């Protein structure tokens, strides 16, 4: 496994402190590795130990059970051997008692033959002793090995009370008798004369079927044959006792052992400090108890058991240690990439967006790391994109704000010009109304002034003869008065005419849309107006001169307008321009090199057209720019301008043609009027008529 971090790109700003905090912060719970180790240790070791314990206990029980069944089997074998002995003894004695030879020998009382017979028969029957008794119990003959205990002491008990002991045999087919310190299994059988015997019984005088005596046979309860048989059957520790007397035990058993119950054939005994397991059985033989058991020491069992348990536990421990080692390796293998993932997440969380994980485990963790890397890359991209977007949005917002502010400015300008237009319109209407009201009385003034002058002339003619008759002084006085009166009347007429001119101009405001709109070659109209204005100015003032500059848009298409009205506007603007430029040329302390210039330009804007009239005169002070289009506002000396030229021009451009007129100026440099007219009449407002 190859693991580690690789730094590929320049890191974005990282908060080192937060990274350190994220990495150094100990996990609130144990690390994944510890948890995994603990978990698997618990999962493996605890069951192992439990299994050992259970297995040990189970083993113990199983071993004891096996032991017990083994003991039971031994006991069964013991029983079989005993039973076999018993059976062969009883059958042998019965068979011998019925033997004709014995009967005959007894009947005839041939002692030597009897002894010989008993020896022979004892060998056939393989018993320890065989004896014959008379009816009164007196021993007739006895056969046994020479060293056999109880030799010659065997007797037949008279009563039941003292049977079984002291070599006194009970009168019953089978009994246990102790004689000379050795327990015997004895069988006592009566020997009767045979019914069919025909051997000259008269000689003895015993009738047929008469009892002849008794035959007693016995084997040691724990004789060498039995012990040998038991040993052959691998019954190592047999024990036999009759009533309370221990017959045989190759262990230091002093007293009969407590018998195990039927349910627990294997009992635990402590003999001379050693613990044995044992099983015992009881036999009733001739009213006597014969108890026999098998024993086995527990120690070897315990040792082997302990060995088994130790082997199991040892194997368990080895397994656990191997498991822990493997676990440590596996946990490391699993937790290392997880640790790397955690670190990577912490670093990315702290802002190191260029961090990538290098995990090649070929499993879900590698897939997770790859996914993590993709996520980090996406995060990095979207972070960069986000910054870019924020910039973009900021720029867009800024643009939108600028646009909104621009729109607001335009709106305010439009509002201002609307207010101005409204003001101008009402001023125009007012002007026209005033003009009408003044016109009638002014007509009277002019008419009566003119009439009065006529009348004065008539008076002079009529009064001439009378005046001629007066003295020179009076005549001179009358003549002078007449002259003054005539002069005054002329002045009244003159000023009346001036006022009439003003009124006529004022009435232009309400002249009504007399002219029809028609498609006009604007450039030609401008040229015509320019010539008219120039020659008009030259006619008034011989010394007047100005340079005319034309910058006409050659692609200008015909424009719908009222040519005579627009021509008035042009004439007015040209006149103003001539006046301003010329005034600067003739200024008292002006520049001698100054050349008055009037520049006229047109532009076809598609839906609209634009005309610019620019002069290089003294310019218009900002303070009076707002008043330019108001009626009666003029900067010319009294009598030179009515102050209505621009006001009427304004009406014609805005009201009649739905256009705009604006002024731009810089003092001492230039004044430029810009007229913008819609190409067609669609937006033209109808003009109020008075």
């Amino acid at each position, binding site marked *: 496994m190859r693991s580690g971090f690789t730094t590929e790109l320049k890191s974005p700003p990282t908060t080192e402190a937060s990274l350190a905090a994220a990495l150094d912060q100990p996990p609130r719970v144990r690390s994944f590795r510890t948890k995994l180790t603990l978990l698997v240790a618990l999962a493996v070791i605890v069951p192992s130990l439990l299994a050992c314990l259970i297995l040990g206990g189970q083993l113990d029980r199983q071993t004891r059970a096996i032991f017990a069944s083994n003991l039971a089997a031994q006991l069964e074998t013991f029983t079989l051997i005993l039973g076999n002995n018993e059976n062969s003894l009883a059958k042998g004695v019965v068979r011998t008692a019925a033997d004709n030879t014995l009967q005959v020998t007894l009947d005839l009382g041939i002692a030597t033959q009897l002894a010989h017979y008993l020896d022979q028969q004892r060998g056939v029957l393989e018993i320890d002793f065989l004896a014959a008794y008379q009816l009164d119990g007196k021993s007739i003959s006895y056969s046994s090995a020479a060293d056999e205990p109880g030799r010659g002491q065997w007797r037949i008990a008279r009563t039941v009370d003292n049977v079984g002991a002291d070599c006194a045999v009970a009168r019953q087919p089978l009994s246990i008798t102790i004689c000379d310190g050795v327990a015997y299994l004895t069988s006592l059988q009566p020997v009767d004369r045979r019914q069919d015997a025909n051997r000259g019984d008269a000689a003895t005088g015993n009738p047929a079927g008469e009892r002849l005596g008794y035959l007693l046979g016995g084997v040691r309860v724990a004789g060498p044959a039995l012990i040998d048989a038991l040993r052959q059957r691998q019954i190592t520790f047999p024990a036999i006792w009759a009533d309370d007397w221990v017959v045989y035990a190759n262990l230091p058993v002093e007293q009969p052992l407590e018998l195990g119950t039927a349910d627990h054939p294997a009992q635990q005994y402590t003999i001379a400090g050693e613990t044995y397991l044992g099983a015992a059985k009881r036999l009733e033989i001739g009213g006597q108890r014969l108890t026999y058991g098998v024993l086995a020491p527990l120690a070897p069992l315990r040792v082997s058991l302990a060995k088994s348990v130790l082997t199991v536990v040892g194997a368990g421990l080895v397994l656990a240690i191997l498991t822990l080692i493997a676990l440590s390796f596996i946990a490391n293998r699993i937790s290392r990439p997880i640790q790397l993932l955690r670190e990577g997440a912490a670093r990315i969380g702290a802002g190191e967006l260029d961090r990538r994980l290098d995990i090649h485990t070929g499993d879900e963790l590698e897939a997770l790391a790859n996914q993590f890397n993709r996520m980090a890359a996406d995060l990095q991209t979207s972070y960069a994109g986000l910054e870019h977007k924020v910039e973009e949005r900021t720029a867009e917002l800024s643009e939108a704000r600028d646009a909104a502010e621009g729109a607001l400015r335009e709106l305010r300008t439009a509002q201002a010009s609307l207010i101005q237009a409204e003001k101008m319109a009402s001023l125009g209407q007012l002007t026209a109304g005033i003009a009408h009201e003044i016109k*009638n009385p002014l007509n*009277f003034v*002019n008419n*009566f002034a003119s*009439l009065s002058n006529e009348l004065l002339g008539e008076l002079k003619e009529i009064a001439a003869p009378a005046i001629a008759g007066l003295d020179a002084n009076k005549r001179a006085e009358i003549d002078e008065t007449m002259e003054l009166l005539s002069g005054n009347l002329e002045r009244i007429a003159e000023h009346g005419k001036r006022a009439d001119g003003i009124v006529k101009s004022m009435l232009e405001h309400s*002249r009504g849309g007399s002219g029809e709109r028609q498609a006009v070659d604007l450039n030609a109209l401008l040229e015509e107006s320019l010539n008219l204005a120039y020659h008009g100015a030259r006619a008034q003032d011989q010394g007047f001169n100005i340079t005319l500059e034309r910058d006409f848009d050659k692609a200008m298409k015909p424009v719908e307008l009222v040519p005579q009205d627009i021509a008035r506007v042009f004439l007015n603007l040209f006149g103003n321009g001539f006046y301003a430029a010329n005034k600067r040329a003739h200024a008292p302390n002006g520049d001698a090199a100054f050349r008055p210039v009037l520049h006229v330009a047109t532009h076809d804007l598609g839906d609209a057209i634009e005309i610019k009239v620019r002069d290089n005169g003294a310019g218009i002070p900002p303070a009076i720019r707002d008043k330019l289009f108001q009626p009666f506002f003029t900067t010319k000396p009294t009598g030179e301008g009515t102050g209505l030229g621009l006001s009427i021009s304004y009406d014609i451009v805005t009201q009649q043609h739905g256009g705009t007129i604006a002024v731009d100026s810089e003092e001492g440099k230039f004044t430029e009027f810009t007229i913008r007219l819609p190409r067609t009449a669609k937006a033209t407002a109808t003009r109020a008529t008075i």
Partner: protein
Amino acid sequence: MTVSILVVDDEPDVPDLFRQRFRREARQGTYVLHFAASGEEALDQLAGEIRPELIVILSDINMPGMDGLDLLREVKQRRPELPVMMVTAYGDDERRRRAAEYGAIEFVTKPVDFDLLKSQLQQLSNNPT
């Protein structure tokens, strides 16, 4: 031959002005000037006998009550042959058009050019309709 002219105007100075302007003609016996201050008064005078023969009515248009154009229509109903000249300070197209429609022979804008008016009157008196 002396003929009459009826001038209809609500301005009180109009009769003086016309009398002074036409003083020579009055003195020579060319015209006799009659004046009415309103349309109603003019119709009253027309109903009576105007001596000598009335050759023309000069009427203002803006007058309180019956205005000049209403008077023109009335006159044209009663005396269709009688020429009527409209004299007004308002020389706008609409009034001019209506005056012509109702049958005015002339539309004179104020201030009145009396020399021109006199020549027009001369023509009327020379060629009575």
